[in-house]
Every structure is written in structure tokens, then in C-alpha cells.
């Protein structure tokens, strides 16, 4: 049992981060803090992907030695993905068979899987863009409301809504009369 838990230490950490981030994103009233929570959440996903890519004893995925001379165009990430999932215990057992049939690259050295890293480059860009837009919106909120606290904003909006409803009622009465 303990072994089961410890073997997956990286996943526990990731899930912990993810939940902390999610909690901040929902529980904080300060909008900036919400964005920080969101950033934490997204970062945990990046960790998740990159830890998927790691392979025991694997090195950076830059071909060297005999591998370099082999056909460079050969598509080999399937194998590494399968290796990567060995950490996944039971999950990997089933997956391994699936992936194995996909291709034996026969590399001399062990490399980490490069693909998740590449994907995360994209995800980082997406995350930065989201953060930028989020911050820009918060700046505008601050300009419009004079605060970045969500509950104060909600209270102000509620006041506006009540005032609108009141004037609406007056107007419709005037219309009826």
C-alpha cells in the first residue's frame, strides 16, 4: 500500500497542486488571487504532462551515438509513451500491450518522450495568453468599479440591478397609465 502511494509521488503532488489552484480560483474574492489560483492549476497540468514523459534512466531526447545515424525520420514516440506509462502501474500494463504493437524502435539509448514537452510549450503559451487577458480585464474592472474584490463588485451590480428593476416598474406603471 505504502509502496503504491510512494511510487506515484509525482501524481500526488500534481493532484495536490491542482486542487489548491482550483480552490483558490473559486474561493478567493480577490480577482488577482483567482488568477493566481488559475495559474497554479494550469501549472500543475504542465507538470502532469512532463512527468508523463519521463522515463527511468532516460536522457534528453536528442539523438546521439548510434541512434543518430539511424533513420531520423522514424517515428518513435509511441514506444516512449508506452515506457512513460510504466509509472502508471496497472494503467500501464494494459497500455503497454497496445503501444508495443505500435512500433519497436530499437534505440540504443533511452530517451525521454519529447512530445509532451512540445505540447506543454503550446499550453504555456495558451496559459500566458489567458493570464494576460485576465489581467487586462481586471485592470478594466478596477477602472470601472474601483475595486478588485469580487463580493464588492457583486454588491455594486446588485444595487444597479435593483435600481433598474425599480425604474422598470415605474416605467411600466407610467405606460399602463
Amino acid at each position, binding site marked *: 500500500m505504502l509502496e503504491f502511494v510512494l511510487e506515484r509521488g509525482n501524481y500526488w503532488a500534481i493532484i495536490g497542486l491542482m486542487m489548491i489552484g*482550483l480552490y483558490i480560483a473559486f474561493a478567493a474574492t480577490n480577482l488577482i488571487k483567482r488568477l493566481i489560483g488559475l495559474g497554479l492549476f494550469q501549472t500543475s497540468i504542465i507538470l502532469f504532462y512532463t512527468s508523463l514523459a519521463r522515463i527511468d534512466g532516460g536522457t534528453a531526447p536528442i539523438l546521439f551515438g548510434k541512434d543518430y545515424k539511424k533513420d531520423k525520420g522514424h517515428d518513435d514516440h509511441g514506444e516512449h509513451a508506452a515506457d512513460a506509462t510504466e509509472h502508471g502501474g496497472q494503467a500501464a500494463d494494459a497500455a503497454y500491450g497496445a503501444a508495443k504493437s505500435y512500433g519497436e524502435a530499437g534505440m540504443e539509448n533511452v530517451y525521454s518522450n519529447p512530445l509532451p514537452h512540445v505540447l506543454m510549450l503550446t499550453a504555456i503559451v495558451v496559459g500566458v495568453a489567458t493570464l494576460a487577458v485576465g489581467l*487586462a480585464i481586471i485592470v478594466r474592472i478596477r477602472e470601472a468599479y474601483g475595486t478588485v474584490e469580487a463580493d464588492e463588485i457583486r454588491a455594486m*451590480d446588485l444595487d444597479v440591478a435593483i435600481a433598474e428593476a425599480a425604474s422598470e416598474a415605474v416605467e411600466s406603471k407610467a405606460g399602463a397609465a
Partner: protein
Amino acid sequence: MIDFIASLVPSNLAAHAPALLVVGSMLMAPIAAFMPNGRLAWLTSIVATGFALLMAIVLLSQVRSVEGNAVISYAMGGWMPDAGIEFRIDALNSMVLLLVSTIGFLAAIFSWPSVAAEIREAKRAMFYAAYLVCFTGLTGVASTGDAFNLFVFLEISSIATYVLVALGATRDRRALPAAGNYLLMGTIGASFFVVGVGFLYAATGTLNMAELAIRLQDVPDNKAVFAGYAFIVVGLGIKAAMFPLHQWLPNAYAYSPSFVTMFLAATATKVAIYALVRFLFTVFGLEFAFEGSTLIWILMPMGIAAMVACSFQAVFQTDVRRTLAYSSVAQVGYMLLGISIGTAAGVSAGMFHLVNHALIKGALFMALAGVVLSYQGTTLNDFKGLGRSSPWTMTAFAIGALSLIGVPLTAGFQSKYALVTALFEHGWWWAVAVVMFSSLLAVVYMGRILEAVFFQTASNPNKRRKEAPLIILIPLWVLALANIWVGVQGGFVAGLADDAAASLFIGGAS
């Protein structure tokens, strides 16, 4: 007609249609951003979306050129699938693409008066750039065959959407918190999705959706796949405003610029539903362990809850925009219900309603934009007596409203008919009762508006009232007449939906 238009396109262009459809508008976005004034940016966006529409027509004709519908596989940049990103167009994709690009094109045409009134001149060029980016994202989601790429496109469209929604602040500052909230929910949804994709990748070692479908069959009892499945359904559920994950939607629709509301209501949730369907039926497939129970215990109850709860909420709104926004969530419920039947007929009905609802809400929100333009306000009070002062706008609005209710000879009737037939064939007669009840609620909330429009006198006659400009009326009436056309001669759209459903169930996995 479609084949004729497609035949006009040079063949070397047509061969790259899947890429051009998406890339075209993406490249036009920076061009629009650098236009010296808003009007030129507007023309750029018309050209870009018009080109996308042309490409969508080409794709549709290519897909339909083969008996039983072809599947077009396009390797991005010449990198073969699995290593490279594949764009994969089948009957379902081509239908969604045609829908999105048609609406996008009409929206682009109609946008100018509305944008000119609601957005400051300095921002207009950037506004259109954001619009084109959003459009790119939506078409990208609808054409890619790669799970991670789908996430990227989903975020491209979402980030642009946050910007567009926030720009409503010129009219009402409440647009800003709405956009912020949308950003939070949308990002979490997309992140859930990408976590799910990560699990699938861990279990199978591929990101290509068609390849995923094959390899997932070899790992039927993999817990990582189960977890991934849950993450994906929830993530896409948020994007599709599946009840109860719809909380971001009413505010975002109510406070964003009129044009944005119209475009989003007609396309954004539709594309998310497309992605959901794609994952549920193509990637996982009905054999997948959780699929059946998801359909019956998640999609169906949530669909039904949306139909009832949000229709009720729609009844009690005083702002017409919010009424329509809640109604949108309710209508998403219809689509989910159709999908949750899990038969070809059910999914076809869901897809049919997806198209029809885009036509309906497109027309309704366009008319609403006309009202906002000529008359600053969208409360029920403001609508009083509009039937007299702007009959053309309001007649089109009425057609949309009748179609939403599901009155015969309109599009809404046809898809509800298809849905109820599918429900009966599946034996879910109690769900029929819910559908009908929800339709009655639609009668109530739309009837309220129509009555104010046509049978009450204006409560404040001093405010300026006039017909919407021609540039709004033309696309508006195109959509309104499309509603009637589908209602009277719905064979074309119903055929598209049938083909789309068939592509999911027969050979969709291979």
C-alpha cells in the same frame, strides 16, 4: 447548388480546403488589426469569413461526392498523421463547419452598424481582429482530428471570446465581471479537457482521435482512461454550457456587445457540443464502459434539468437578452437529450436541433441587436409597441420566436419532431412529456415578449424608435427565411444531420 459553387473553386485551392478554411481567417486577423479604420477591418472580416464559407462549401461537396460520404484526411504541413496534426473532415465536421462559417459570414456582414454604435472607433480594428481569431478557433475545433490541437483551438476561440465579451463594457460595465467569470470557468473547462487528453495519451500513446478510437478498444478497463473520460466530459460540458455548468453563460450573453452575443449564441456552444459528440461517439464509442451510463445518468438528466430549470428562469427575466440566454441553455438541453438517446436517430435529432437552434438564436439576437441600435435598451418595457415602429425587424423576430417555440412550418418544429420521434422509438415516453412541457414554457416566455411587441403600446414614446438599418435587416431576414425554409423543406438540413449521425455510428471509428 453546393456542387456548382464548389466547382468554381480551382482544384489546387480545393485540395487544401481544410487548411485554408482555418488558416485563411487566422492570417486575415492581423491584417484586420492593422487596418487604419474600423470600416476597412469590417470589410476584411467579411472577406475572411466569406472565404471560409466558400471553403466550407467546397468541403461539404467533397464529403458528399462519394456515396455514403467520404472522409477527407488532410495532413497539416505534410506531416503524416500520428506524428503530424491531421485535419479530418467527415459528414459531421462538414456540417458544423458549414454552420459556423455561414453564421460567421452573416454575422460579419450585419456587424457594422452594431459595432459602430457600441465600440469606440479606436478599438474597432482590434475588435474585428479578435472576432476573426475567435472564428478561426471555432472552425479549427470543428476540423481538427488531433485531440491536443482541439484544445489549442478551443483556447484560441475562448481567449478571443473573453476579449469580445469584455468589450461590452462601453455599454454596461457589468460586461467586465461577466468576462472575468467566463474566463475563469472557460479556462478551467479547457484545462480539465487537456488533463483528460493527457490521461488518454498516457494510456495509448497517441493524440490522433481516429487512432485513439482504435487503441482505446485494446485497453477497455484502464483506470487512466476512465479518469481521462471524466475530465473530458466535464471540461467540454463547461464549454457547452451543460447544466449545471452554465452559470457563466447568461451574464456573458447579456452584457457583451450585441454582435458578439449573436455570434456566440449561434456558434460557440454548438462547437463545444460538436466536440463532446466527437469524443463520446468517435473516440470512446458506445462500447466504452462508462459511455452508456454517462448518457443515461449524466447527459440525459442534465439535459432534462436544463430544459425545465432554465426555461423557468427564462420566464422570470425582465431583460429580453437574459430570457434568450437562459433559453439557450435550455435548448442545449434538447441537444444533450437527443445525444443521450445514443441511437443514430437520437444523435441525428440532436444535430438537427443544433443547426436549427443556431438559425433561431442567430435571428433572434440579430433582431435584438437591431433593437439595441435604434433604441437603447432590451428590457421587456422597451419592447412594447416595437411591432408598430419597426415591423420588419420584429416580424423576423417573431419568426425566430415561433421557431423557438416549435410552431409548425418553422425549423424548430422539425427538429423537435425528430427528437420526439427518436424518444418514442427508444421508449422514453416520459422524456417526451418533459420536452413538451419545456416547449410550453417557451410559449410562455416568448409569448410574453411577442405580446409586448405587437399588442401593447409603447410605455415611453419619447425615446427614438425606428427600423433597423438595411445592413442588419438583410442578414436577419436571411436567417428568418432559413428558419421557414427548414420548416417547409427541411430535407437538406435533416439530410446533413442524418449523414453526420451515420458517420458517427458507421465507420466513424476507423
